[in-house]
């Protein structure tokens, strides 16, 4: 089940996992994968987090690729938790990425965690424009038809006395912000200042989860 909407004349689908599907272009967009988060934590002398988040994220991605059969993948930045962490991933996980890339166009957009090219296949770009849409990591003030990530948006709702929070897409007239796709990625509530000022008053939040759906963005 996915949520269909139109953004700058492009018919798009928000998937339950937080990926964005654009069937007309045969494209799957995911943002903020943060591969290698536990590796980075370990390197900094902190507690050793369970090193399974990369395969968890890859499993999610593989499932979405199987479902959508998309021929192109666009990773919207912060795909790796640190610039050189890709090389530190266990060989099995690097091979998994290579396997997913086989037979597909693959584009890495630069993020603030992972600027510059890395030693994995695919093309590396600062941003990419496809028809009416421009894909970059961080939303700009002047962006039009802009698809970005970076903020890990999350919505919190009060449901008859219980509170529920879900990662969400944010959508207004000019921009679309994707939720973080990676495991172990926290979130920023839509009420927080950066998101509240960035998004227009009539913005919507598209909640991820078993049945993606749109609500007015909680402020």
């Amino acid at each position, binding site marked *: 089940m996915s949520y269909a*909407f*139109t*953004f*700058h*004349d492009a018919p798009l689908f928000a998937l339950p996992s937080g990926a964005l599907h654009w069937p007309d272009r045969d494209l799957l967009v995911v943002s903020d994968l943060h591969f290698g988060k*536990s*590796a980075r934590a*370990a*390197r900094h*002398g*902190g*507690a*050793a*987090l*369970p*090193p*399974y*988040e990369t*395969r*968890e994220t890859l499993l999610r991605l593989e499932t979405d690729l199987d479902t959508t059969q998309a021929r192109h993948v666009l990773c919207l930045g912060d795909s790796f938790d640190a610039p050189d962490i890709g090389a*530190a991933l*266990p060989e099995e996980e690097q091979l998994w990425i290579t396997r997913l890339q086989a037979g597909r166009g693959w584009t890495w957009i630069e993020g603030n965690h992972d600027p510059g090219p890395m030693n994995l296949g695919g093309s590396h770009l600062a941003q990419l424009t496809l028809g009416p849409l421009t894909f970059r990591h961080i939303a700009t003030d002047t962006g039009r038809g802009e698809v970005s990530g970076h903020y890990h948006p999350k919505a919190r*709702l009060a*449901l*008859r006395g*219980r*509170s*529920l929070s879900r990662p969400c897409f944010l*959508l*207004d*007239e000019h921009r679309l912000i994707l939720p973080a796709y990676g*495991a*172990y990625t*926290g*979130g920023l509530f839509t009420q927080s200042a950066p998101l509240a000022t960035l998004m227009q008053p*009539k913005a*919507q939040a598209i*909640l991820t*989860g*078993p*049945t993606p*759906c*749109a*609500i*007015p963005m909680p402020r």
Partner: protein
Amino acid sequence: MQPPPSLQHWFDARGWQIHPHQQAMLDRAQEPALLLIAPTGGGKTLAGFLPTLAELGAKPPPGLHTIYVSPLKALAADIKRNLRLPVTEAGLDIRIEDRTGDTSSHVKRRQRADPPHILLTTPESLALLTSYEDAPRIFAGVQRVVVDEIHALAESKRGDQLMLALARLSTLCPGLRRVGLSATVDDPAAIARLLARHPGTCAILTADPGPDPDIQMLVTEQAPPWSGGGAAYAIPAVLEQVRQHKTTLIFHNTRAQAEIFFHNLWLANEDSLPIGIHHGSLDRAQREKVEAAMVAGQLRAIVCTGSLDLGIDWGDVDLVIQVGAPKNVKRLVQRIGRANHRYNAPSKALLVPANRFEVVECVAALDAVKAHDLDGDPRGPGPRDVLCQHILIAACAGPFDADQLYAEMTSAGAYAALTRPQFDDCLQFCATGGYALRAYDRWQRLLQRDDGLWQLRDPRSATRIRQNIGTIQDTDTLKVKWRGRGGGNLGEVEESFAASLTKGDTFLIGGQIVRYEGLRDLVVEVSRDPGKKPKIATFMGTKFATSTQLSARIVNMFQQDSWPDLPPHTAQWLALQRRVSRLPEPGRLLIESFPHDGRQQLVVYGFAGRNAMQTLGLLLTKRMEEMGLAPMGFVASDYATLIWGLDAVTDPRPLFDLDALEAGLDGWLAGNAVMKRTFRASATIAGLIERNLGGQRKSGRQATMSSDILYDTLLKYDPDHLLMQITREEAMRGLVDFARIREMAARVGDRIDHVTLERISPLSAPLFLEPGRVPVRGSADERLLADEVARLMDDSGLSQVDTPG
């Protein structure tokens, strides 16, 4: 052995005579480990210190002689005050200092360089001290360690942490003698095993228990309500008792109840009697003010919670009032002892039930006190999450040898049965994370050097480890301050409570009504509110479980034809329950269902104790989810489980299909909130989740999210990981295994009595106030979400409009 002559002189001048058990402590001062069991008010603490004062004498050489450990910072500060007075006036040249989380950093530094003769501290501060590289120098020559209120520590991981710290001290100072001071308990031998340095043993010295307490139920003209925990009905009668006595302690089971009661008491206090409030959520400065006023005898009454349970000397208390059912006979007896500090005089206490069910509980508790029937549940082997923390603490102090550390740790009673493979698992966890996938070995936390010793890979990580020492898992709380720059601290509320507030809401804290203004930098900002009716603070405080023994007494009482021992209002209430529904019977299972509060409610009166009832709640909601009944959550008490959901249960019998329930057992570990809560606590103690990072505490909500995700990935990819094993052990310890449910099911058979009602039943009412509600995340979420989405879209008009663009 005798006290120093000048001290004896000081005692004589006050007409003070040594109690037999205090002399016995002096005579047996050379025992390697000695446990004193004495009633509250029996001069326990002095008994613990007399040998130290005798050994130090008038002109002791410098150096640490005795470490005193108490469960409370306030108690350490209080002992310092009480001990310094005779020592100073007797002209003894003995330095006594405390060292707790409240001690300033420059004092702490000085104490490490130049320790006092007697150091008063807490288990956490002591564990921290042992983590320093110069620990061998600080502790050189220590002779005695005195553990006060050891019965309280023995019930929790704080006791396990303390015993591991003592094991380290005994390694540093092999001649160290241990003394434990305990209130009256059901099983002294269990505490002695905990305190002993294995394979050595610990002797037990039992003081004269003194006369039985004078304890009764408070008689009021007005009947207690059917439900609720406020006991507002009893305010006039309680005030009258306060007037008739010099100083009254009014105990409550939760902080919220204490706040509400204090507020009501103050509104009714026409004589303006000086009455104070004291509980753990209040700001330290406020607590200290109340403590000082209490010691100075300026207060006629103090409304308090468990924060006053332990042996602080509150001067001339002549009455203890317990509001709400005592839940636990042992704790009740210890609380009653707070009244009347004269040894060998009976303590006077009154029980005030907050509602009708509690009247029954109070009568059952009175019977148990008269019968000297103390309750208690044995604790299992020492939890390994605490062990992991102590391996990291040992690494902070310097390189260690694994064989020696294993030998040291197994000298602690709770860990005496720890096997070497179990220890090695913990060491591996601390070193590498202990994952099946050996992903990042080159960045492991501990490394084994060429000489075989283990050390921190990055010495700087010692700071982070030290910041996370401790085993106390407080509910996550936020500070409450007056709005404006430099606004004063009022205390703390639970994060979940703060999240439920919107601007303009009012609640009670420290006896004042305040108005919620907003949240800034994890601080709740409030302003004064002139109103009289607050939105009630629901922060919980400590949750007590009614002991199994007490529960059994209650269900037996239900079987009487009439209840002459109960006040008429309660007897009538039970009769009403018998009329509109039924009363639970041994060997049968009563189930009620009725709508309430917009939900369908199901109440199962299992009387199997809180842990089993909690397990039952988990399993039943899982079954209900499978059957499409959209359960939303449950809460368990010792006598019943309450489940609420979107759909009514018309026939509960299929739910109790034992085979289906048992089949669900394998899966129940997987996704439920109780397991995640347990995992989070253990992962924090074992050092996987860091609560304090560079002095900045992560908000509890952030910590909750990440620990849930870690739990889910471990369950999926590494289900036999050490922390998952610990979580299961802890859950079994906390939730009790399936055996209790099976036993209940066998006892009940098919004798299930299902009663469908149109409204809440008298007996079920107290359950709706039970803390510890466990949410069930399932189809109900999706259904509620769909409703809410539809409502939001209608409200905003968005459902009429196409997407923007």
